[in-house]
């Protein structure tokens, strides 16, 4: 499984580095940054280049409607790969920890990692 993270700026590259602090170096993963001034076409070409080769591909993007997402769905019209959006730290760790991760399961598990800690503890001062 090849993993490609496409984000606004270096968020994806740094996210991958941070995740690797926990799960170790991921040889089959890379991140692609969209920087101010980069064209969607240029981004598309960099993603296509990263997709080169055989095997299954999973693409993580940062946000629905953003250029990394828009360019990825443009590519998805022509070739099959898994596409997720809303990538975050716990999600990516969970993904790398399991072989042959089921994507539906990954999304469901990830939703459970978003927690308003005070609420869970019953420690909320209303009005603040």
């Amino acid at each position, binding site marked *: 499984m090849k993993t490609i993270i496409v984000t606004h700026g270096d968020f994806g590259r740094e996210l991958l580095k941070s995740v690797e602090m926990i799960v170790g170096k991921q040889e089959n993963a890379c991140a692609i940054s969209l920087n101010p001034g980069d064209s969607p076409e240029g981004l598309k070409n960099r993603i296509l280049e990263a997709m080169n080769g055989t095997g299954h591909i999973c693409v993580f993007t940062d*946000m629905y*409607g*953003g250029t990394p997402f828009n360019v990825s*769905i443009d590519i998805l019209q022509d070739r099959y790969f898994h596409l997720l959006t809303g990538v975050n730290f716990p999600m990516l760790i969970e993904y790398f920890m399991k072989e042959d991760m089921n994507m539906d399961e990954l999304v469901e598990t990830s939703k459970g990692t978003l927690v308003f800690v005070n609420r869970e503890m019953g420690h909320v001062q209303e009005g603040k």
Partner: protein
Amino acid sequence: MREIILARIDDRLLHGQVVVKWIPHLEADVVIIVDDELDNNPFLKKVTLTAAPKTIDIKVTSVDNFSECFKNVKGRILLIAKIPQVFENLINQGVEIKRIVLGGMGSGDNRKNLYRNIHVSTEEMASLIKLADTAEVDIQIIPDDKPRNILKI
């Protein structure tokens, strides 16, 4: 209540700045993307509609089917199209558009640079000037930018 609070020209249509900045700033209830190409691409249209966060109500329509789409929405509406001629067409159909902003028009296709990331062809400029007869037309990439009136550039 059904009111078009803003019509935005942006050849990226929906993208990060629109989702994060414009929709909350305008307190828009509905975003209507008016684009024949997207409307005629079932795959991209489906992704645009189904992958949207639950907090955003998005519609996609062709220019010809706009009135059909418009009568089924309520609230504060943001329109997005790639080129000014789309809004000119809608105004000719009787649609009321009071304010238009230019948010992003890429270079190429005989376009000349107007301001920062805004490029226009002769036809597009003519259309913008026509639009300025009945609407306020500004360059404003994000809500925080000071609007620059198209007639004063």
